[in-house]
Protein backbone atom coordinates (compact mmCIF):
# COMPACT_ATOMS: atom_id res chain seq x y z
CA UNK A 1 0.00 0.00 0.00
CA UNK A 2 1.19 3.46 -0.81
CA UNK A 3 0.84 6.16 1.85
CA UNK A 4 -1.88 7.81 -0.23
CA UNK A 5 -3.88 4.62 -0.53
CA UNK A 6 -6.97 6.12 1.11
CA UNK A 7 -7.18 8.93 -1.44
CA UNK A 8 -9.19 7.67 -4.41
CA UNK A 9 -7.30 8.49 -7.55
CA UNK A 10 -9.01 9.28 -10.82
CA UNK A 11 -8.98 6.21 -13.04
CA UNK A 12 -6.93 7.80 -15.82
CA UNK A 13 -4.13 8.38 -13.34
CA UNK A 14 -4.42 4.93 -11.78
CA UNK A 15 -1.03 3.36 -11.30
CA UNK A 16 -0.04 0.95 -14.00
CA UNK A 17 -0.85 -2.64 -13.16
CA UNK A 18 1.22 -5.16 -15.03
CA UNK A 19 -1.36 -7.77 -15.83
CA UNK A 20 0.98 -9.64 -18.17
CA UNK A 21 3.40 -10.12 -15.31
CA UNK A 22 0.59 -11.32 -13.04
CA UNK A 23 -0.64 -13.75 -15.68
CA UNK A 24 2.83 -15.21 -16.00
CA UNK A 25 2.67 -16.09 -12.29
CA UNK A 26 -0.28 -18.45 -12.88
CA UNK A 27 0.87 -21.57 -14.77
CA UNK A 28 -2.66 -22.85 -15.49
CA UNK A 29 -3.46 -19.80 -17.60
CA UNK A 30 -1.41 -21.27 -20.43
CA UNK A 31 -3.49 -24.46 -20.39
CA UNK A 32 -5.47 -25.45 -23.48
CA UNK A 33 -9.13 -26.39 -22.95
CA UNK A 34 -10.82 -28.31 -25.77
CA UNK A 35 -7.83 -27.22 -27.82
CA UNK A 36 -8.44 -23.52 -27.10
CA UNK A 37 -6.51 -21.20 -24.80
CA UNK A 38 -8.17 -21.15 -21.38
CA UNK A 39 -10.27 -18.06 -20.63
CA UNK A 40 -10.92 -18.40 -16.92
CA UNK A 41 -13.90 -16.39 -15.76
CA UNK A 42 -14.88 -18.46 -12.73
CA UNK A 43 -12.67 -17.07 -9.99
CA UNK A 44 -15.58 -16.41 -7.63
CA UNK A 45 -16.04 -20.15 -7.61
CA UNK A 46 -12.39 -20.80 -6.98
CA UNK A 47 -9.38 -18.78 -8.03
CA UNK A 48 -6.31 -20.08 -9.82
CA UNK A 49 -3.02 -20.42 -7.96
CA UNK A 50 0.27 -18.63 -8.59
CA UNK A 51 3.46 -20.65 -8.83
CA UNK A 52 4.60 -19.40 -5.42
CA UNK A 53 1.58 -21.07 -3.80
CA UNK A 54 2.07 -24.31 -5.69
CA UNK A 55 5.75 -24.27 -4.67
CA UNK A 56 4.97 -23.54 -1.03
CA UNK A 57 2.76 -26.62 -0.66
CA UNK A 58 5.29 -28.70 -2.55
CA UNK A 59 8.15 -27.36 -0.41
CA UNK A 60 6.29 -28.22 2.74
CA UNK A 61 6.05 -31.86 1.71
CA UNK A 62 9.64 -31.95 0.49
CA UNK A 63 11.33 -30.19 3.36
CA UNK A 64 9.05 -29.82 6.36
CA UNK A 65 6.44 -32.55 6.45
CA UNK A 66 5.67 -33.37 10.09
CA UNK A 67 2.84 -32.78 12.51
CA UNK A 68 2.63 -29.42 14.21
CA UNK A 69 2.80 -28.44 17.87
CA UNK A 70 3.50 -32.00 18.91
CA UNK A 71 7.08 -33.09 18.48
CA UNK A 72 10.53 -31.91 19.38
CA UNK A 73 12.23 -32.74 16.11
CA UNK A 74 13.38 -30.29 13.48
CA UNK A 75 10.77 -31.09 10.85
CA UNK A 76 7.96 -30.51 13.33
CA UNK A 77 9.57 -27.21 14.20
CA UNK A 78 9.60 -26.25 10.53
CA UNK A 79 6.01 -27.35 10.01
CA UNK A 80 4.87 -25.46 13.09
CA UNK A 81 6.80 -22.42 11.91
CA UNK A 82 5.06 -22.48 8.53
CA UNK A 83 1.66 -23.01 10.09
CA UNK A 84 2.00 -20.29 12.70
CA UNK A 85 3.66 -18.06 10.12
CA UNK A 86 0.54 -18.25 7.97
CA UNK A 87 -1.56 -17.34 10.98
CA UNK A 88 0.53 -14.20 11.48
CA UNK A 89 0.24 -13.36 7.79
CA UNK A 90 -3.52 -13.76 7.95
CA UNK A 91 -3.61 -11.45 10.97
CA UNK A 92 -1.67 -8.88 8.99
CA UNK A 93 -3.87 -9.34 5.94
CA UNK A 94 -6.96 -8.56 8.00
CA UNK A 95 -5.16 -6.01 10.18
CA UNK A 96 -6.06 -8.00 13.30
CA UNK A 97 -4.03 -6.79 16.25
CA UNK A 98 -3.37 -10.24 17.71
CA UNK A 99 -2.64 -13.46 15.76
CA UNK A 100 -4.39 -15.38 18.55
CA UNK A 101 -7.66 -14.00 17.22
CA UNK A 102 -7.06 -15.88 13.95
CA UNK A 103 -8.55 -19.38 13.93
CA UNK A 104 -7.41 -21.51 11.01
CA UNK A 105 -10.42 -23.33 9.60
CA UNK A 106 -11.31 -25.47 6.60
CA UNK A 107 -12.77 -22.39 4.94
CA UNK A 108 -15.67 -19.98 5.06
CA UNK A 109 -18.33 -22.64 5.54
CA UNK A 110 -16.40 -24.15 8.42
CA UNK A 111 -15.88 -20.73 10.01
CA UNK A 112 -19.58 -19.87 9.88
CA UNK A 113 -20.58 -23.25 11.30
CA UNK A 114 -18.04 -22.78 14.07
CA UNK A 115 -19.51 -19.42 15.05
CA UNK A 116 -23.10 -20.66 14.72
CA UNK A 117 -22.52 -23.75 16.86
CA UNK A 118 -20.09 -22.35 19.40
CA UNK A 119 -21.20 -18.75 19.80
CA UNK A 120 -24.75 -18.96 18.47
CA UNK A 121 -25.76 -22.10 20.27
CA UNK A 122 -24.53 -20.83 23.62
CA UNK A 123 -26.12 -17.37 23.49
CA UNK A 124 -29.34 -17.78 21.49
CA UNK A 125 -32.67 -18.26 23.25
CA UNK A 126 -36.24 -18.61 22.04
CA UNK A 127 -37.45 -15.24 20.79
CA UNK A 128 -33.96 -14.07 19.81
CA UNK A 129 -33.35 -13.18 16.19
CA UNK A 130 -30.61 -13.83 13.67
CA UNK A 131 -30.59 -11.27 10.88
CA UNK A 132 -29.40 -12.30 7.40
CA UNK A 133 -29.73 -10.71 3.98
CA UNK A 134 -31.34 -11.99 0.78
CA UNK A 135 -27.91 -11.90 -0.85
CA UNK A 136 -26.39 -14.59 1.31
CA UNK A 137 -24.64 -17.68 0.03
CA UNK A 138 -26.22 -20.91 1.30
CA UNK A 139 -23.19 -21.23 3.61
CA UNK A 140 -24.35 -18.13 5.43
CA UNK A 141 -27.96 -19.32 5.66
CA UNK A 142 -28.05 -23.01 6.49
CA UNK A 143 -25.73 -22.96 9.56
CA UNK A 144 -28.01 -20.31 11.05
CA UNK A 145 -31.12 -22.34 10.27
CA UNK A 146 -29.55 -25.27 12.10
CA UNK A 147 -28.77 -23.23 15.20
CA UNK A 148 -32.16 -21.51 15.06
CA UNK A 149 -33.81 -24.92 15.16
CA UNK A 150 -31.63 -25.98 18.07
CA UNK A 151 -32.23 -22.87 20.16
CA UNK A 152 -35.67 -21.62 19.19
CA UNK A 153 -34.26 -18.39 17.75
CA UNK A 154 -35.91 -16.92 14.65
CA UNK A 155 -34.31 -15.91 11.35
CA UNK A 156 -35.10 -12.55 9.78
CA UNK A 157 -34.02 -11.59 6.30
CA UNK A 158 -33.25 -8.10 4.98
CA UNK A 159 -34.68 -7.67 1.48
CA UNK A 160 -32.73 -6.41 -1.52
CA UNK A 161 -33.77 -3.91 -4.15
CA UNK A 162 -33.94 -4.44 -7.93
CA UNK A 163 -30.31 -3.46 -8.31
CA UNK A 164 -29.29 -6.24 -5.96
CA UNK A 165 -28.44 -3.99 -3.01
CA UNK A 166 -29.44 -4.56 0.59
CA UNK A 167 -32.27 -2.18 1.51
CA UNK A 168 -30.68 0.05 4.16
CA UNK A 169 -33.98 1.25 5.62
CA UNK A 170 -35.35 -2.25 5.95
CA UNK A 171 -32.11 -3.28 7.61
CA UNK A 172 -32.48 -0.63 10.27
CA UNK A 173 -36.15 -1.45 10.67
CA UNK A 174 -35.41 -5.14 11.25
CA UNK A 175 -32.75 -4.46 13.89
CA UNK A 176 -34.12 -4.61 17.42
CA UNK A 177 -33.05 -5.63 20.90
CA UNK A 178 -34.10 -9.15 19.89
CA UNK A 179 -31.39 -9.19 17.19
CA UNK A 180 -28.52 -11.15 18.69
CA UNK A 181 -26.52 -11.95 15.55
CA UNK A 182 -26.23 -10.26 12.18
CA UNK A 183 -24.58 -12.42 9.50
CA UNK A 184 -23.93 -10.66 6.22
CA UNK A 185 -21.68 -11.02 3.23
CA UNK A 186 -19.09 -8.37 2.47
CA UNK A 187 -19.40 -9.02 -1.28
CA UNK A 188 -22.17 -11.08 -2.91
CA UNK A 189 -20.94 -14.09 -4.87
CA UNK A 190 -24.02 -14.18 -7.10
CA UNK A 191 -24.17 -10.48 -8.05
CA UNK A 192 -20.92 -8.88 -6.91
CA UNK A 193 -22.65 -6.29 -4.72
CA UNK A 194 -20.34 -4.69 -2.14
CA UNK A 195 -22.40 -4.22 0.99
CA UNK A 196 -21.88 -1.16 3.22
CA UNK A 197 -20.81 -3.40 6.07
CA UNK A 198 -19.01 -0.79 8.15
CA UNK A 199 -22.23 1.18 8.60
CA UNK A 200 -24.24 -2.01 9.03
CA UNK A 201 -21.89 -3.19 11.78
CA UNK A 202 -22.19 0.12 13.66
CA UNK A 203 -25.99 -0.01 13.41
CA UNK A 204 -26.06 -3.61 14.64
CA UNK A 205 -23.79 -2.76 17.55
CA UNK A 206 -26.13 0.06 18.55
CA UNK A 207 -28.71 -2.67 19.16
CA UNK A 208 -26.28 -4.91 20.98
CA UNK A 209 -26.00 -7.47 18.18
CA UNK A 210 -22.83 -9.29 17.26
CA UNK A 211 -21.86 -9.24 13.56
CA UNK A 212 -20.30 -11.96 11.43
CA UNK A 213 -19.05 -10.87 8.02
CA UNK A 214 -18.74 -13.48 5.28
CA UNK A 215 -15.68 -12.21 3.48
CA UNK A 216 -15.24 -15.11 1.04
CA UNK A 217 -15.72 -12.88 -2.01
CA UNK A 218 -14.18 -9.73 -0.57
CA UNK A 219 -10.78 -11.17 0.29
CA UNK A 220 -9.46 -11.52 -3.29
CA UNK A 221 -10.45 -7.96 -4.18
CA UNK A 222 -10.71 -5.55 -1.25
CA UNK A 223 -8.36 -4.37 1.46
CA UNK A 224 -9.87 -5.63 4.71
CA UNK A 225 -9.32 -4.05 8.11
CA UNK A 226 -11.23 -5.82 10.88
CA UNK A 227 -10.32 -3.11 13.40
CA UNK A 228 -11.62 -0.34 11.21
CA UNK A 229 -14.76 -2.34 10.36
CA UNK A 230 -15.15 -3.15 14.06
CA UNK A 231 -16.69 -6.51 13.15
CA UNK A 232 -16.99 -9.32 15.69
CA UNK A 233 -16.28 -12.19 13.31
CA UNK A 234 -14.83 -12.22 9.81
CA UNK A 235 -14.55 -15.42 7.78
CA UNK A 236 -12.86 -16.23 4.48
CA UNK A 237 -11.56 -19.09 2.31
CA UNK A 238 -7.99 -19.47 1.10
CA UNK A 239 -9.02 -20.98 -2.23
CA UNK A 240 -10.87 -17.86 -3.37
CA UNK A 241 -7.80 -15.70 -2.75
CA UNK A 242 -5.24 -17.68 -4.76
CA UNK A 243 -4.45 -20.18 -2.01
CA UNK A 244 -5.14 -23.92 -1.73
CA UNK A 245 -8.55 -25.42 -0.98
CA UNK A 246 -9.43 -26.77 2.43
CA UNK A 247 -8.26 -23.92 4.59
CA UNK A 248 -9.33 -20.45 5.61
CA UNK A 249 -9.67 -18.06 8.48
CA UNK A 250 -12.06 -17.10 11.19
CA UNK A 251 -11.14 -13.82 12.83
CA UNK A 252 -12.95 -13.28 16.11
CA UNK A 253 -12.97 -10.54 18.68
CA UNK A 254 -10.72 -11.76 21.48
CA UNK A 255 -13.20 -11.56 24.36
CA UNK A 256 -15.81 -13.40 22.31
CA UNK A 257 -13.45 -16.20 21.26
CA UNK A 258 -12.22 -16.60 24.84
CA UNK A 259 -15.74 -16.93 26.19
CA UNK A 260 -16.92 -19.34 23.49
CA UNK A 261 -17.03 -23.10 24.13
CA UNK A 262 -15.00 -25.36 21.85
CA UNK A 263 -16.55 -26.41 18.55
CA UNK A 264 -15.01 -29.83 18.10
CA UNK A 265 -13.10 -31.97 20.57
CA UNK A 266 -9.82 -33.73 19.88
CA UNK A 267 -6.08 -33.39 19.94
CA UNK A 268 -4.38 -29.99 20.05
CA UNK A 269 -7.45 -28.19 21.42
CA UNK A 270 -6.85 -29.31 25.00
CA UNK A 271 -4.36 -28.45 27.70
CA UNK A 272 -5.13 -31.30 30.10
CA UNK A 273 -7.30 -34.38 29.65
CA UNK A 274 -8.52 -36.70 32.37
CA UNK A 275 -11.70 -38.68 32.34
CA UNK A 276 -13.04 -36.44 35.08
CA UNK A 277 -12.37 -33.09 33.48
CA UNK A 278 -10.62 -31.73 30.42
CA UNK A 279 -9.08 -28.28 30.32
CA UNK A 280 -9.19 -26.57 26.97
CA UNK A 281 -6.28 -24.93 25.31
CA UNK A 282 -6.12 -21.16 24.90
CA UNK A 283 -7.41 -19.41 21.78
CA UNK A 284 -7.09 -20.00 18.89
CA UNK A 285 -5.98 -23.62 19.52
CA UNK A 286 -9.18 -24.33 21.46
CA UNK A 287 -10.92 -24.21 18.07
CA UNK A 288 -8.38 -26.24 16.11
CA UNK A 289 -8.98 -29.86 17.00
CA UNK A 290 -7.08 -32.53 15.13
CA UNK A 291 -4.31 -32.40 12.54
CA UNK A 292 -5.13 -29.61 10.14
CA UNK A 293 -4.38 -29.11 6.45
CA UNK A 294 -0.79 -28.06 7.10
CA UNK A 295 0.30 -28.06 3.46
CA UNK A 296 -2.75 -25.99 2.58
CA UNK A 297 -2.02 -23.52 5.34
CA UNK A 298 1.58 -23.23 4.13
CA UNK A 299 0.28 -22.47 0.64
CA UNK A 300 -2.26 -20.05 2.09
CA UNK A 301 0.61 -18.10 3.65
CA UNK A 302 2.25 -17.87 0.24
CA UNK A 303 -1.05 -16.68 -1.26
CA UNK A 304 -1.29 -13.90 1.31
CA UNK A 305 2.32 -12.93 0.57
CA UNK A 306 1.45 -12.87 -3.11
CA UNK A 307 -1.58 -10.63 -2.64
CA UNK A 308 0.26 -8.32 -0.27
CA UNK A 309 3.14 -8.01 -2.73
CA UNK A 310 0.78 -6.38 -5.22
CA UNK A 311 -0.23 -2.76 -5.25
CA UNK A 312 -3.73 -3.69 -4.21
CA UNK A 313 -5.23 -0.37 -5.12
CA UNK A 314 -3.85 -0.73 -8.63
CA UNK A 315 -5.03 -4.33 -8.79
CA UNK A 316 -8.54 -3.33 -7.84
CA UNK A 317 -8.54 -0.45 -10.32
CA UNK A 318 -7.54 -2.96 -13.00
CA UNK A 319 -10.30 -5.38 -12.03
CA UNK A 320 -12.87 -2.60 -11.88
CA UNK A 321 -11.87 -1.41 -15.33
CA UNK A 322 -12.22 -4.93 -16.74
CA UNK A 323 -15.61 -5.32 -15.03
CA UNK A 324 -16.79 -2.01 -16.45
CA UNK A 325 -15.62 -3.06 -19.89
CA UNK A 326 -17.29 -6.47 -19.54
CA UNK A 327 -20.56 -4.92 -18.42
CA UNK A 328 -20.61 -2.55 -21.38
CA UNK A 329 -19.62 -5.19 -23.95
CA UNK A 330 -22.02 -7.86 -22.70
CA UNK A 331 -24.87 -5.38 -22.44
CA UNK A 332 -24.49 -4.62 -26.15
CA UNK A 333 -25.38 -8.20 -27.04
CA UNK A 334 -29.04 -8.44 -28.10
CA UNK A 335 -31.21 -10.32 -25.62
CA UNK A 336 -28.90 -9.85 -22.64
CA UNK A 337 -30.37 -9.04 -19.25
CA UNK A 338 -27.85 -8.15 -16.57
CA UNK A 339 -28.79 -9.32 -13.07
CA UNK A 340 -27.35 -7.21 -10.27
CA UNK A 341 -26.47 -3.63 -11.05
CA UNK A 342 -25.46 -2.40 -7.62
CA UNK A 343 -23.71 0.93 -7.55
CA UNK A 344 -20.83 -0.64 -5.68
CA UNK A 345 -19.79 -3.99 -7.02
CA UNK A 346 -16.71 -5.98 -7.74
CA UNK A 347 -15.62 -9.00 -9.68
CA UNK A 348 -18.95 -10.41 -10.87
CA UNK A 349 -21.09 -10.07 -13.98
CA UNK A 350 -24.28 -12.14 -13.77
CA UNK A 351 -26.63 -12.16 -16.74
CA UNK A 352 -29.15 -14.00 -18.86
CA UNK A 353 -29.21 -14.45 -22.60
CA UNK A 354 -32.66 -14.66 -24.15
CA UNK A 355 -33.38 -18.00 -25.79
CA UNK A 356 -30.45 -19.81 -24.24
CA UNK A 357 -30.65 -21.40 -20.82
CA UNK A 358 -27.54 -20.58 -18.76
CA UNK A 359 -26.55 -24.23 -18.57
CA UNK A 360 -26.59 -24.56 -22.36
CA UNK A 361 -24.65 -21.32 -22.70
CA UNK A 362 -22.09 -22.71 -20.26
CA UNK A 363 -21.56 -25.80 -22.39
CA UNK A 364 -21.17 -23.81 -25.61
CA UNK A 365 -18.72 -21.41 -23.92
CA UNK A 366 -16.75 -24.31 -22.45
CA UNK A 367 -16.27 -25.75 -25.93
CA UNK A 368 -14.51 -22.51 -26.77
CA UNK A 369 -12.24 -22.70 -23.74
CA UNK A 370 -14.25 -20.18 -21.74
CA UNK A 371 -14.95 -21.18 -18.14
CA UNK A 372 -17.93 -19.47 -16.51
CA UNK A 373 -20.31 -20.69 -13.85
CA UNK A 374 -23.93 -21.24 -14.65
CA UNK A 375 -26.67 -22.00 -12.17
CA UNK A 376 -27.84 -20.59 -8.88
CA UNK A 377 -24.39 -19.94 -7.42
CA UNK A 378 -25.47 -21.38 -4.05
CA UNK A 379 -27.73 -18.37 -3.68
CA UNK A 380 -31.20 -19.66 -4.44
CA UNK A 381 -32.96 -16.78 -2.63
CA UNK A 382 -31.24 -14.30 -4.97
CA UNK A 383 -32.50 -16.22 -8.00
CA UNK A 384 -36.00 -16.36 -6.49
CA UNK A 385 -35.94 -12.61 -5.88
CA UNK A 386 -35.32 -12.00 -9.58
CA UNK A 387 -37.72 -14.83 -10.54
CA UNK A 388 -35.06 -16.62 -12.55
CA UNK A 389 -33.84 -20.20 -12.30
CA UNK A 390 -30.19 -19.45 -12.90
CA UNK A 391 -27.71 -17.01 -14.41
CA UNK A 392 -24.53 -17.09 -16.43
CA UNK A 393 -21.83 -15.68 -14.18
CA UNK A 394 -18.50 -14.37 -15.40
CA UNK A 395 -16.31 -13.61 -12.40
CA UNK A 396 -13.01 -11.82 -12.47
CA UNK A 397 -9.69 -11.85 -10.71
CA UNK A 398 -6.48 -9.89 -10.99
CA UNK A 399 -5.31 -11.97 -13.97
CA UNK A 400 -8.27 -11.25 -16.26
CA UNK A 401 -7.96 -8.93 -19.23
CA UNK A 402 -10.09 -7.18 -21.80
CA UNK A 403 -9.04 -9.92 -24.21
CA UNK A 404 -10.77 -12.43 -21.92
CA UNK A 405 -13.92 -10.33 -22.18
CA UNK A 406 -13.61 -10.11 -25.96
CA UNK A 407 -13.42 -13.92 -26.04
CA UNK A 408 -16.49 -14.12 -23.81
CA UNK A 409 -18.42 -11.80 -26.12
CA UNK A 410 -17.43 -13.88 -29.16
CA UNK A 411 -18.48 -16.97 -27.26
CA UNK A 412 -21.85 -15.49 -26.41
CA UNK A 413 -22.44 -14.69 -30.06
CA UNK A 414 -21.74 -18.36 -30.79
CA UNK A 415 -24.32 -19.27 -28.13
CA UNK A 416 -26.83 -17.03 -29.88
CA UNK A 417 -26.06 -18.75 -33.17
CA UNK A 418 -26.71 -22.21 -31.74
CA UNK A 419 -29.96 -21.19 -30.07
CA UNK A 420 -31.22 -18.67 -32.59
Amino acid at each position, binding site marked *: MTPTAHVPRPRSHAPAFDVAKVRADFPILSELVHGKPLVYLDSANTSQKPLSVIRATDDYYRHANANIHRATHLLSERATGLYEGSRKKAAKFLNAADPHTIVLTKGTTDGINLVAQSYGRSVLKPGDEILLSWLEHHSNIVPWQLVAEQTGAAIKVVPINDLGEIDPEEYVRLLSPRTKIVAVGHVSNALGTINPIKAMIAQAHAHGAVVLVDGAQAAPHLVIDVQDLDCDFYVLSSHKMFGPTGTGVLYGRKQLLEAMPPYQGGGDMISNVTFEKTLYNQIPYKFEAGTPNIAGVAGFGAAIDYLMSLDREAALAHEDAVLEYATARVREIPGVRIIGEARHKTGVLSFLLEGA*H*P*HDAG*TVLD*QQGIAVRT*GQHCAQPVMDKFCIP*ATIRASLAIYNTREDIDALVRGLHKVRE*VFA
Partner: protein
Amino acid sequence: MTELNDLYQEVILDHNRRPHNFRVIDAASAKQEGYNPLCGDRLTLYLTLDGNVIKDAAFQGSGCAISKASASLMTDAVKGKSVTEARQLFEQFHAMITSEPGTPSDDLGKLSVFAGVREFPTRIKCASLAWHTMKAAVAHPSTALRASETDAPVSTE
Protein backbone atom coordinates in the same frame (compact mmCIF):
# COMPACT_ATOMS: atom_id res chain seq x y z
CA MET B 1 -17.49 -27.71 -32.87
CA THR B 2 -18.43 -31.20 -34.06
CA GLU B 3 -19.02 -32.38 -30.49
CA LEU B 4 -21.27 -29.40 -29.90
CA ASN B 5 -23.33 -30.40 -32.92
CA ASP B 6 -23.50 -33.93 -31.52
CA LEU B 7 -25.04 -32.53 -28.37
CA TYR B 8 -27.31 -29.89 -29.80
CA GLN B 9 -28.83 -31.83 -32.66
CA GLU B 10 -31.55 -30.11 -34.66
CA VAL B 11 -34.17 -32.42 -33.15
CA ILE B 12 -33.14 -31.39 -29.65
CA LEU B 13 -33.15 -27.69 -30.52
CA ASP B 14 -36.61 -28.10 -32.08
CA HIS B 15 -38.04 -29.84 -29.06
CA ASN B 16 -36.51 -27.14 -26.87
CA ARG B 17 -38.23 -24.42 -28.88
CA ARG B 18 -41.52 -26.26 -29.28
CA PRO B 19 -41.75 -28.98 -26.67
CA HIS B 20 -44.38 -31.68 -27.12
CA ASN B 21 -46.84 -32.45 -24.33
CA PHE B 22 -46.02 -29.16 -22.61
CA ARG B 23 -49.23 -28.85 -20.64
CA VAL B 24 -50.98 -29.77 -17.41
CA ILE B 25 -53.14 -32.89 -17.14
CA ASP B 26 -55.82 -31.82 -14.69
CA ALA B 27 -57.03 -35.30 -13.86
CA ALA B 28 -53.58 -36.92 -13.83
CA SER B 29 -53.33 -40.16 -11.93
CA ALA B 30 -49.71 -39.43 -11.07
CA LYS B 31 -47.97 -36.11 -10.63
CA GLN B 32 -44.32 -35.78 -9.74
CA GLU B 33 -41.87 -32.92 -9.36
CA GLY B 34 -38.32 -33.23 -10.67
CA TYR B 35 -35.54 -30.85 -9.72
CA ASN B 36 -31.90 -30.54 -10.64
CA PRO B 37 -30.35 -28.22 -8.06
CA LEU B 38 -27.14 -27.97 -10.05
CA CYS B 39 -28.67 -25.85 -12.77
CA GLY B 40 -32.09 -25.05 -11.35
CA ASP B 41 -34.02 -27.20 -13.84
CA ARG B 42 -37.49 -27.90 -12.53
CA LEU B 43 -40.30 -29.89 -14.04
CA THR B 44 -43.65 -31.30 -13.07
CA LEU B 45 -44.60 -34.51 -14.79
CA TYR B 46 -48.22 -35.63 -15.21
CA LEU B 47 -49.21 -39.17 -16.12
CA THR B 48 -52.59 -40.72 -16.83
CA LEU B 49 -52.45 -44.41 -16.05
CA ASP B 50 -54.98 -46.97 -17.12
CA GLY B 51 -54.09 -49.99 -15.10
CA ASN B 52 -50.52 -50.66 -16.06
CA VAL B 53 -50.57 -48.57 -19.22
CA ILE B 54 -49.46 -44.95 -19.57
CA LYS B 55 -52.32 -43.39 -21.51
CA ASP B 56 -51.09 -39.84 -21.45
CA ALA B 57 -47.98 -37.98 -20.35
CA ALA B 58 -47.27 -34.25 -20.12
CA PHE B 59 -44.98 -31.84 -18.34
CA GLN B 60 -44.50 -28.25 -17.28
CA GLY B 61 -41.47 -26.42 -16.00
CA SER B 62 -38.33 -24.60 -16.93
CA GLY B 63 -34.95 -25.93 -17.78
CA CYS B 64 -32.07 -26.07 -20.18
CA ALA B 65 -32.49 -27.23 -23.77
CA ILE B 66 -31.30 -30.75 -22.96
CA SER B 67 -33.69 -31.27 -20.07
CA LYS B 68 -36.64 -29.72 -21.87
CA ALA B 69 -36.09 -31.69 -25.07
CA SER B 70 -35.59 -34.82 -23.01
CA ALA B 71 -38.90 -34.31 -21.21
CA SER B 72 -40.59 -33.63 -24.53
CA LEU B 73 -39.26 -36.78 -26.17
CA MET B 74 -39.67 -38.90 -23.04
CA THR B 75 -43.38 -38.03 -22.75
CA ASP B 76 -43.79 -38.85 -26.45
CA ALA B 77 -41.99 -42.15 -26.00
CA VAL B 78 -43.81 -43.51 -22.97
CA LYS B 79 -47.32 -42.77 -24.16
CA GLY B 80 -49.09 -46.08 -24.84
CA LYS B 81 -46.37 -48.09 -23.14
CA SER B 82 -46.81 -50.23 -20.08
CA VAL B 83 -45.08 -49.14 -16.89
CA THR B 84 -42.68 -52.05 -17.26
CA GLU B 85 -41.82 -51.07 -20.83
CA ALA B 86 -41.32 -47.45 -19.79
CA ARG B 87 -38.93 -48.51 -17.04
CA GLN B 88 -37.04 -50.68 -19.50
CA LEU B 89 -36.76 -47.81 -21.91
CA PHE B 90 -35.28 -45.67 -19.15
CA GLU B 91 -32.68 -48.38 -18.48
CA GLN B 92 -31.70 -48.39 -22.17
CA PHE B 93 -31.73 -44.60 -22.36
CA HIS B 94 -29.60 -44.33 -19.26
CA ALA B 95 -27.14 -46.90 -20.61
CA MET B 96 -26.89 -44.92 -23.85
CA ILE B 97 -26.14 -41.54 -22.26
CA THR B 98 -23.64 -42.94 -19.78
CA SER B 99 -21.79 -45.35 -22.08
CA GLU B 100 -18.20 -44.82 -23.16
CA PRO B 101 -18.05 -42.58 -26.24
CA GLY B 102 -17.54 -44.74 -29.29
CA THR B 103 -19.17 -47.89 -27.92
CA PRO B 104 -22.33 -49.15 -29.62
CA SER B 105 -25.67 -48.78 -27.87
CA ASP B 106 -29.23 -49.88 -28.57
CA ASP B 107 -31.07 -48.09 -31.33
CA LEU B 108 -33.66 -46.10 -29.43
CA GLY B 109 -35.24 -44.44 -32.41
CA LYS B 110 -35.84 -40.75 -31.85
CA LEU B 111 -34.30 -40.97 -28.38
CA SER B 112 -30.95 -41.72 -30.04
CA VAL B 113 -30.48 -37.98 -30.57
CA PHE B 114 -29.35 -37.90 -26.95
CA ALA B 115 -26.39 -40.20 -27.59
CA GLY B 116 -24.15 -37.13 -27.87
CA VAL B 117 -24.75 -36.37 -24.19
CA ARG B 118 -22.19 -39.01 -23.24
CA GLU B 119 -19.44 -36.71 -24.49
CA PHE B 120 -20.62 -34.15 -21.93
CA PRO B 121 -20.59 -35.72 -18.46
CA THR B 122 -21.85 -32.51 -16.85
CA ARG B 123 -25.04 -32.74 -18.90
CA ILE B 124 -26.07 -36.32 -18.15
CA LYS B 125 -28.25 -35.16 -15.28
CA CYS B 126 -30.07 -32.74 -17.57
CA ALA B 127 -30.94 -35.52 -19.99
CA SER B 128 -32.03 -37.96 -17.31
CA LEU B 129 -34.08 -35.64 -15.09
CA ALA B 130 -37.41 -36.25 -16.84
CA TRP B 131 -36.78 -39.99 -16.84
CA HIS B 132 -35.96 -40.13 -13.14
CA THR B 133 -39.12 -38.16 -12.53
CA MET B 134 -41.15 -40.62 -14.62
CA LYS B 135 -39.67 -43.54 -12.72
CA ALA B 136 -40.66 -41.96 -9.40
CA ALA B 137 -44.16 -41.17 -10.69
CA VAL B 138 -44.90 -44.74 -11.78
CA ALA B 139 -43.36 -46.22 -8.63
CA HIS B 140 -46.09 -44.73 -6.44
CA PRO B 141 -48.88 -43.58 -8.71
CA SER B 142 -51.55 -43.86 -6.07
CA THR B 143 -49.53 -42.20 -3.34
CA ALA B 144 -48.42 -39.56 -5.82
CA LEU B 145 -52.07 -38.90 -6.48
CA ARG B 146 -52.79 -38.42 -2.82
CA ALA B 147 -49.63 -36.72 -1.71
CA SER B 148 -48.46 -35.16 -4.94
CA GLU B 149 -48.32 -31.66 -3.48
CA THR B 150 -46.15 -32.66 -0.57
CA ASP B 151 -43.98 -35.26 -2.26
CA ALA B 152 -40.33 -34.42 -2.04
CA PRO B 153 -39.13 -33.49 -5.52
CA VAL B 154 -36.91 -35.99 -7.22
CA SER B 155 -33.41 -34.67 -7.22
CA THR B 156 -30.67 -35.83 -9.51
CA GLU B 157 -27.97 -34.75 -7.07
